[in-house]
């Protein structure tokens, strides 16, 4: 460790370059270290060329790039720390403010050069402001083009009375395709891309569904259908724990009791997963008798307005 004495109160401004002195042992060592660092950097740079031309390899490229940059970094940093004759200097801090006088002068200049003119023509100034405001409003108008009016799009899905339930590949589904506790993601026939319409078809023990009569009437032999979109933040409710008859959302861990109308039993979700009313046609295929009983997905401001 080098200890250097500095006379108290010395204000080192432009220090004079000290006379050349023979390098100390430490400086020689630093010089060698810097030379090695730069050599490593240069070799790594060349290596990058070779690896790149040979077809590239991510890990080797990363290491070589790190060595090329790191060699430069170490060399330059050591140079700065060990070989520069580092001097601590004191710089005076000046008052930030220009002072009251300058401010008064500025105010006066503004007032003299235009202020009185503007004051005398207050009517024109008002007109100018009005024109400016109208212009700003006109400029903001194209923002409306960015999106359609929400309308009823959040309240309705692609399910209509009579729409058959299909798998993601478009195949229709019979009620007896599902065994007990089986879960199937279903979509409305003809709308395989309708993200808001995806639903879960589940077969539960028929007698155990504890839901109001008109909802129970919308199930088929224990086959019940709920929206797959979490009412909390809209993730697909992906996991079904058959033993507990609960649906689990992996995003924020909301849990829904399938037997009780998918009412939330744990986690941040506040509303049940909406139920899709089902029926069976003559050929045994499941179809919806209408849209979900409530709007699907997360809450929004006018969700409960009809």
């Amino acid at each position: 460790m080098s200890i250097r004495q500095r006379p108290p109160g010395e204000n080192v401004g432009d220090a004079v370059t000290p006379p050349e002195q023979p390098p100390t042992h430490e400086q020689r060592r630093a010089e060698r270290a810097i030379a090695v660092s730069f050599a490593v950097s240069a070799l790594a740079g060349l290596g990058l060329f070779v690896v790149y031309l040979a077809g590239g390899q991510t890990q080797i490229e990363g290491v070589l790039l790190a060595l090329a940059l790191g060699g430069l970094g170490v060399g330059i940093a050591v140079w700065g720390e060990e070989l520069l004759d580092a001097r601590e200097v004191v710089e005076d801090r000046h008052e930030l403010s220009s002072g009251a006088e300058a401010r008064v002068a500025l105010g006066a200049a503004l007032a003299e050069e235009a202020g009185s003119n503007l004051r005398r023509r207050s009517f024109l100034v008002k007109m100018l402001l009005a024109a400016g405001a109208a212009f700003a409003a006109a400029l903001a108008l194209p923002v409306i083009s960015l999106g359609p009016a929400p309308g009823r799009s959040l309240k309705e899905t692609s399910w209509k009375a009579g729409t058959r339930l299909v798998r993601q590949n478009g195949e229709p589904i019979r009620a007896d395709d599902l065994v007990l506790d089986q879960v199937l993601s279903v979509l409305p026939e003809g709308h395989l891309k309708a993200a808001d319409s995806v639903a879960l078809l589940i077969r539960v023990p028929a007698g155990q569904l504890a839901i109001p009569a008109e909802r129970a009437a919308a199930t088929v032999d224990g086959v019940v259908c709920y929206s797959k979109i979490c009412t909390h933040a809209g993730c697909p409710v992906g996991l079904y724990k058959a033993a507990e008859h609960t649906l689990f959302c992996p995003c924020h861990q909301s849990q829904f009791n399938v037997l009780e109308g998918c009412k939330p039993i744990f986690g941040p979700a506040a509303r049940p997963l909406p139920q899709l009313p089902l029926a069976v046609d003559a050929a045994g295929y499941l179809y919806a008798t209408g849209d979900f009983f409530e709007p699907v997905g997360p809450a929004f401001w006018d969700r409960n307005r009809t």
Partner: protein
Amino acid sequence: MPSFNVQTPLKWVDERLGTASTARTAFRKVFPDQWTFLIGEIALFSLVVLVLSGTFLTLFFVPSSAEVVYDGPYQPLQGQEVSAAFDSVMRLSFEVRAGLLMRQLHHWAALVFVASIVIHLCRIFFTGAYRRPRELNYLLGMVLLFVALGEGFTGYSLPDDLLSGIGLRIAYSVSLAIPLVGTWLTFLVFGGEFPTTDLISRFFVFHVMLLPAILLAGVFVHMGILVLQKHTQFAGPRRTERNVVGKRLWPEQTFKSTGLFMLVAAVLAALGGLAQINPIWEYGPYNPFSVTAPAQPDWYIGWLDGALRLGGPWDVALPGGFLISELFWPAVLFPGIALGIVTMWPWIEPLFTGERAEHHILERPRDAPFRTATGVGGLTLFFILFLEGGNDVMGVLLDVPVEVITRILQVAFVVAPLVAWVITYRICLNLQATQMHPAEPAPGELLRRTPSGGYETVPLDQIV
């Protein structure tokens, strides 16, 4: 051999722009020699790496949600319908030479960028560097943090993989939860009901043009104000409120900063090459019917995701069929208040302390117990949320049901910040009482041998 004369180019430029004396002043700028002052530089250098690597990525990325069939060398996804955006990122990862390195380098640089901004903010906060006259630069720094978060989120969303699609889905739902205007605002930003085809091209414009323009201009002004106002410094020998003690920009600080830049870039390159990040081929392309578990966002969004998990089922039905979403409290109101307090802190603190004077000497955290305790309490709050953001991962690691972890953290969210506040406050007072102070010169003198063989004493505070 004609030797190079530095006067030749200097003369050429100066005779046309007259910059020589300004440059002379600039190179003489004094930088206090304090390692914590380099954290902001790390943010700046990560930003440079982000711009360079990002420019490379832009040359290959296709900002389109048009459907294409994947037909690249990654077997498991062959024949799958993916978006053109996802397809181009797959191409970058598997077919473009050095493409994966650049992608991973870019992602790591983004994580380090936000991290260094946050640590820089902590340094500024806990040393009171934001006090008059630096309130404006603090405010600008907060704006830069928010823009950086926006950059992070939009960039995370661009590859259109399953994980980023879920992130977008959640952001869309949070946006819907804004009372009164949420639905309209969301439809304007996203271009309709989620998922929309406009989204990727829009986020691409945000990510590579609008936000970087704001970011770069803001950083320029941030540093310009720093030069105008000069650096703060810790108390120490010869340091007063009226001066700055340190090393000059040229040559000392230039060597130090250039070395640091190279080292930051080197670490990012090593991470980019060796540490896999965001392997989108493992998540697969986004489709609205699937979900991955566990799903974790980048670290700086973790606290917000944690807030979503921690929140209760508190939706509030209002008369007239209106509804306040349960997402409103944790994802709109809480971040609004918490980040609002952080942003406005230079104006909030004086309400409590009455301290409004100009300061250039930094405070040690122990000397401002109220501020330090409040800062630690706030960090605790965010940390609890961050933990909750990983409740599923913790549940697996600790073999504890996530329900239990959530309940514990719900209590901790209320209790832990208060406990942290009281403990920090007492630690500050105790440290003050020890009278040992790293910012004060140690008492005593050093006895040492002179070259001529005699002895001399040097006050310890005179030793550099």
